[in-house]
């Protein structure tokens, strides 16, 4: 479903050129749980952003569900993105002015879903992740773990099949981190494809496959037997 061929991403400032991704070839199938690892600055987040269509590559090909991404217009990209991909960020990226409920609902706002159905689906997903009692609270009133659960809920409420998680546990203590990882595993068990960037080897163990990057290149790929 995701196929990267010879994909490169270069950042240029006035006098420095940084190669973030260097001719990367990766294929990810539906239902996989992939962890992307590597030292800081190796291109993990760049890879995730390109996969998530938040950023475009400089060269190479990215085929998503049979669509060549480089030929899509901006509006087509945003359409593909919102139908298929949910995002979870290290810093949660919830909107402070909105309540928990509204933050989750935001993901449905751009799907042309009637208000009544939106409400239902938001209520359902809040129940599922056990945050319903906090529905009216602001993000700043929640713990980090709770905020990240809201973010995960927001990533799946639109019934996207892929979740891209950029160090989802980076800002959490170990217990909360574990809770979030359990959620992700449960979602993977339901059939969602999960691609996660992480620094933590133990959290990478939740994934079925690990891709190690170094200086923008894939250095090791290992498949793990699921325990």
């Amino acid at each position: 479903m995701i196929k990267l061929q010879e994909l490169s991403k270069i950042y240029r400032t006035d006098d420095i050129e940084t190669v973030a991704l260097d001719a990367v070839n990766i294929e990810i199938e539906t239902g996989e749980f992939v962890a992307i690892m590597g030292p800081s600055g190796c291109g993990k987040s760049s890879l995730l952003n390109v996969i998530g269509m938040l950023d475009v590559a400089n060269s190479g090909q990215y085929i998503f569900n049979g669509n060549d991404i480089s030929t899509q217009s901006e509006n087509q990209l945003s359409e593909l993105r919102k139908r298929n991909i949910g995002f979870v960020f290290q810093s949660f990226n919830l909107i402070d002015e909105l309540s928990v409920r509204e933050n989750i609902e935001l993901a449905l706002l751009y799907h042309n879903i009637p208000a009544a159905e939106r409400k239902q689906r938001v209520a359902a997903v809040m129940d599922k992740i056990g945050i319903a009692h906090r529905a009216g609270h602001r993000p700043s009133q929640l713990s980090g773990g709770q905020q990240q659960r809201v973010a995960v809920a927001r990533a799946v409420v639109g019934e996207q099949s892929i979740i891209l998680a950029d160090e989802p546990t980076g800002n959490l203590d170990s217990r909360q981190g574990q809770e979030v990882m359990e959620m992700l595993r449960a979602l993977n068990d339901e059939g969602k494809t999960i691609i996660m960037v992480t620094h933590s080897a133990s959290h990478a163990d939740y994934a079925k496959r690990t891709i190690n990057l170094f200086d923008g290149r894939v250095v090791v790929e290992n498949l793990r037997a699921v325990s």
Partner: protein
Amino acid sequence: MLLGYIKVALRNLLKHRFYAAINVVGLAIGLTVFLLSLLLARYETNHDYMFENRDQIYFVGVEFTKSADIGVQSIDAVQSAFGPLLRAQEPELEALARSINREYLVTVEVDNYYQSIKFVDTDFTKIFHLDYIAGDASVIHNPTSVILSRSAAEKYFGHTDVLGAQLELDHEHSMTVGAVFEDIGKDSHFNSALIDDSQLEFIAPFSALKQIADYSMEGEWNNISFGNRTYALIPKQCDQQWLQQRVDSLYEEHLNPERKDFIQKFRARPLIEANTILFDAIGMPIIESVRLLGLMVLLIACVNYTNLATAQSFSRTREVGLRKSFGASRNQLLVQFLVESLTTAVLALLIAVAAIELIIPWYNQALDKAVQIYYLETLPLLMLVALMVGLIAGAYPAYQIAGVKPVDSLKNNNALVSGGGYFRSTMIGLQFAMSTFMLAIVMVMLFQGEKMQKSSYIYPRDEVLVLDRLDIEGTRARHESLKEQLLKVKGVKEVSYSSQVPFDQSNSTFPITPLRGDKSAEMSINQVRVDTDFLSAYNIPLLAGRGYSLNYANDKRTDEPGQVNVIINETAAARLGLGSAQQAIGKTFYNIQSSDSDQDEFKQYDYSVIGVVEDQNFLGLHNTIKPMIFLFSDDWRSHASIRLDTANLNETLSSIEKTWNDVIPDYPLQRRFLDEVFEETYQIIRAMSMTLSGFAAIALSLALIGLFGLAAFMAERRTKEIGIRKVLGAKASQVAYLLIWQFSIPVVWSLLVSIPAAYFASSIYLGFFADKIDTLIPVLLVAGVIGIATAWMIVSLHAFKVARLPPIRSLRYE
């Protein structure tokens, strides 16, 4: 410490260059407009300081009753019979002098000039101390002497050493130059740009006018003209009220009841009001409006600053938190932020002063004024303004930011962004309320002006050439042959003599009644003296009856009392109760004889209606349609109207000039198109709407600049949110909509305030006009729509740019 604050302030301005530029430029524009408006208002209201006893000099004018309906509410002159009465009644008065402006043809050797001469009572030179460079004031007692200004002497003789030099008035009256005085500055009411008739360059004694024109002024109660002022020098210990009491008693005692119907009051005014009296006369508070508009523009600029500074200050919570953790008190922080806004204000002030230095010379040249900035005098004011602006604009943001708790400010930057939202919205609303208010008024003025222009075309404005100065006695005998010769010129269709042409702002009225022998004035009628061709020359349609003809002996009014055939307009017929145009034909009305005058309109005439013309606004502009009588008479012919075929215009014009020079070689031709007659009176209204348009344009652009800055800033603050929304699938247009909508709410509600306010204000303005636009509400709504549309446009400029950025850039912003 203060120096440290200023240093931080300047660094901060440099760091946030974009917003700082908006702030400084916005405030500078606001200050420029505000200071300029103060300066100009002060200039116009502080004339005549070159006369050392200015504060003792007063002039007496009249205030008209509402029913007088002559297009002005008051005038700077009083009848010439008044002066001597005041003089006789009040021995304490130090001096009293009347002045009358009359135009004469002045001949020096072979050169001819039309010159407005100021004829004055001998006390004039006691009231106004002129700076004589040759001769002295005593010549005012000599009825054949004239006193010239330096520039007049140079104009006529090429130099100022001209004592004893001869000049001739109207080829008949020889006068001698008795004295020359230094030119009076432009900032004297004598040189007012507003009333062009009152220049002080050629002075002659009243006794001369008596000799030349056989003009008796002692009992003259009929004439009041702009610029013919009666000045009084009152004793030092007396004041305006003292003079007013004496003036009031003369009004009671000497004005007969008919005139009291017309004149409500004699009013003593200090000389300092003389320059701006025209604004009073037309009943529009121009000076006050200019001050108010200047202040509004400054307020809009302050609001810009406050808004942007408040918004921006939230990005500095971290700095505040740090300073507080290191022991800064709330007050110290307040001072720090106020120093910043004061620094901005001072920078803006410097720019404003520089701008004014550039604008003033240009303004002086364009409008022939002598505005100056006196820095020593204005420095305290400038400092005060900078201080006020700095404090007012900076107070709220400083208060907000200094109140931040250190823990919050260090911990979470974003939680505070939403703060001050209501305040900002209110301020934006306020700004837009002010600028759409001005915009709406300007549009009303422009449309009303357009309407006036349009309705003035009932007269063939560009096909009538008006020849002036035909009232000069020396030309009178040649009128008939002039007309005869002019009619032979190719391209001339009609020639008609009259006392007045359309758009001349002159009301010559007399009281009439439908009942013979009635003594109480039922109504006044405006008279125009015409000849047989006037109606056809001006396309004035007859509704019933016939025009004047030489074949009927009674058509022309002569000095002999008796029956006269006349043409009136519909309004006159209706007010006299003569019925419709058809019914009025053949009916008679009468003038009311007055006891205190021997003028011929007060002889007994029976006016028999032979024609009724359509109602037309003969005075045009803001005037109502009045009862009119077109009298066929040989008297008072001051204009010839020539109806032209506009093809080959230049040829026709030069033929006309040649014809004039053949028939009347001793007086130069003075001509203007009816168009110009209109423009002369229309220019005040035009100048007013231009000025207001300028203010409104600046106000609106300031508001838009402010909105742009704020929109840019808010978009920046919401970058993360925008990123999240885009990640969640929002399209660029949806994001842009979000940003635009944020600013639409205050702009929309501001219209709820500004449009009714504009309705109220423009109703007052339109009340000045008889012929009003009937589309006031649509015009106001259009102004509202323009307000919203420009606001949207400005916000969109930025919103679409931000919305198009790839989402990851927005998210990486932190």
